[in-house]
């Protein structure tokens, strides 16, 4: 008989007997579904956070902090310094001059919609050029704030996560009252978690004098960064740290992302071991229950190869069904789930959506397949090694 057709017929035969062992098979599949769901679920948090903390559209936006500052929060620049930075070579120019925005970054306490408890919400004071610098800021609802007035626009993520940030509402922070006049999207996800207002209004409200914390600049092209950076770092009147926004965001999100990823992989790894033991148990019992059957097949002339393969394939099929179910469940449960958390590196809240990416799903299915393969391999070898005479006599 042809080798391949042997494999097919033995495999079909064993798959048809699954209903007789549905308890054990279901347990193995559920275990693997669990591994996959956990892996996808936890890693989707990290993926979503990383996606929120990146600005794929803005590879030519740079920001400048004070030398030694690790975030906008710890940075400080005087008006003179921000002017020197705006005049640096490499900065793109628009109708109103250099596309550079000197910005102020403070924190306010606002209650979270979910729990009603206070959260650190970033409030950013920007110059008129800020929108042109980012390039992709879109006012979804309402209008842009008017300069010189206590008006704010709120990022879509912040509007979702914190109470009282609807267009037309006012909120009080210290002695100042701010009116929400618009909701915006665009920029990085981190910026969508922010509230924006006119820097000139924010400065006196926060006793900041005429100082800023960062300058955002649109570069002529991504290649102009080298020139921009060299000009700033070699200027004796400045002690600053220029970096690309993408770089900065990656730096700000690295700790939380790697913490969640480490946790996710560790847990999924442990769980995978647990599921592997379950799969091994199932397949060993399957082989044990079919001892006579397998021996009969061997006696009829089926080779060891087809028997081994059939057991492995069965295990793989069970694992893949479980894995697919787990991945689907995780996708339904987690993809797009809106959450916000505190990013310790900036000390502020970031609103983001869990992201079940295709890459994650592929990884998860690969894990399921690996468990299935390992779970089937050893029992398969046992099946093939059964001594015929003894096995045939088994009840």
């Amino acid at each position, binding site marked *: 008989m042809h080798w391949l057709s042997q494999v097919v017929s033995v495999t079909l035969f064993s798959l048809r007997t699954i209903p007789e062992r549905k308890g*054990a098979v279901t*347990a193995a599949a*559920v275990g693997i579904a669990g591994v996959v769901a*956990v892996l996808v679920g936890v890693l989707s948090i990290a993926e979503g956070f990383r996606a929120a903390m990146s600005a794929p559209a803005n590879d030519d936006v740079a920001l400048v902090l004070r030398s030694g500052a690790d975030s906008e*929060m710890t940075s400080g620049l005087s008006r003179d310094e921000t002017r020197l930075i705006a005049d640096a070579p490499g900065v793109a120019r628009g109708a109103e001059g250099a596309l550079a925005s000197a910005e102020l970054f403070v924190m306010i306490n606002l209650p979270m919609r979910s729990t009603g408890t206070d959260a650190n919400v970033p409030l950013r004071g920007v110059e008129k050029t800020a929108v042109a610098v980012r390039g992709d800021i879109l006012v979804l609802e309402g209008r842009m704030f008017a300069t010189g007035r206590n008006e704010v626009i709120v990022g879509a993520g912040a509007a979702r996560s914190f109470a009282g940030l609807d267009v037309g509402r006012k909120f009080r922070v210290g002695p100042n009252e701010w009116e929400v006049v618009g909701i915006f999207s665009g920029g990085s996800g981190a910026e969508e978690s922010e509230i924006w207002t006119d820097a000139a209004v924010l400065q006196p409200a926060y006793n900041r004098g005429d100082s800023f914390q960062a300058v955002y600049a649109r570069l002529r092209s991504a290649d102009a960064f080298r020139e921009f950076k060299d000009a700033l770092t070699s200027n004796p009147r400045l002690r600053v740290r220029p970096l690309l926004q993408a770089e900065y965001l990656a730096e700000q999100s690295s700790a939380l992302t790697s913490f969640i990823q480490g946790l996710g992989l560790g847990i999924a790894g442990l769980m995978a071991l*647990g599921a592997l033991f379950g799969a091994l148990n199932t397949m*060993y019992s399957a082989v044990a229950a079919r001892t006579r059957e397998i021996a009969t097949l061997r006696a009829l002339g089926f080779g060891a190869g087809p028997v081994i393969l059939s057991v492995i394939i069965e295990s793989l099929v069970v694992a893949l069904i479980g894995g697919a179910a787990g991945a689907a469940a995780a996708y339904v449960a987690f993809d797009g789930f809106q959450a916000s*958390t505190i990013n310790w590196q900036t*000390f502020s809240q970031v609103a983001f959506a869990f992201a079940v990416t295709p890459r994650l799903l592929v990884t998860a299915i690969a894990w399921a397949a690996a468990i299935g393969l390992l779970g089937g391999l050893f029992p398969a070898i046992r099946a093939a090694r059964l001594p015929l005479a003894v096995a045939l006599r088994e009840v």
Partner: protein
Amino acid sequence: MKYVSLVWSNLRRKRLRTGLTVLSIFIAFVLFGLLCTIKEAFTAGVTLAGADRLISRHKVSLIMTLPESYARRMARIPGVASAVHLTWFNGIYQDEPKNFFGSFPVSDPTAYFDLYPEFLLPTEQEEAWLKTRTGAVVGRSLADRFHWKIGDRVPLKSPIWPRAAEEAWEFDIVGIFDGANRATDTSGFYFRYDYFDEARANGKGQVGWFVVRADDPDRADEIARAVDAEFANSPYETKTEPEGAFAQGFVQQIGDIGAILMAILSAVFFTILLIAGNTMAQAVRERTMELGLLKALGFTNGLVLALVLAESCLIATAGGFAGLAVAWLATVGGSPIPSVLPVFFLPAKYVAMGAVLVFALGVVTGILPALEAMRLRIATALRRQG
């Protein structure tokens, strides 16, 4: 005792299956232990908060500073025993932001350590601190992390508080404090405010927040309101709350993620238990005929029940306790990420909870097949094919 060998040989009959089941339960309880450790690490600040301590900060946000002079005004408010201020220094060691730890100038070293009796600082070291202007006192876990010892000179840079002289801040380690128990966070770096205020380039007289001691913990809320009333309608309004509520606020800020991680982990734990339980139950059902035989030999119903339960409990305890032990061992070495989770240990209450779960697992997985076995009519059992 004579039945022990019977249970034992039953377990040994399918050694591989027993082994695999024990291993899956083992994994489940390792996970359980780590889960509890992480949960404890996140909420450590809340559970350890002193009932008589209040935190008073700028009403708008923790990042805004308050005048140093508030300490004296607070101390005069009836019900306030003492008030000490701290400032977020954000010291960076060796120019490496990853070497993160909390560092704070403290207004009054003696009063601060009185406020935190769980920080154990030898008296002679406290005296040395009072004598050394540039002296710093660090927690045991921080000292271990960077191998600092008393007498070391540690340079730190602060992106928030540059020195007037534009050079790194220099501190002399004069004391190392221990925690009163494992739950105490000993990752802090404290130094003197007078040194800090004199040398900083800007913001002189401005401080981060106040730790206020109420002389009666039961009146903490009332005193918090009195403090806020004192500074109401000033340019620097305060928000004062008990330390526990303050810490709780931070935990809340982690938000849904924390809750979701916990939910996922619990789901994992129970899934593994479900699978292991199913295998254990299966192992008993396969032996229905044998159990019938035992009863035919004169074993009472109760004895058959006990034998089956003993078997499942033995599997559960072997795997479960080993898992808890390994989880405990894994946390004894301290935190793998001291900058994120400074407090990292498995509290005894969770070990106890784990032990209860271990027995519950043994009983739950054993009880159904055991009851079935007990109710079995001998004739039916013997007729059944194994």
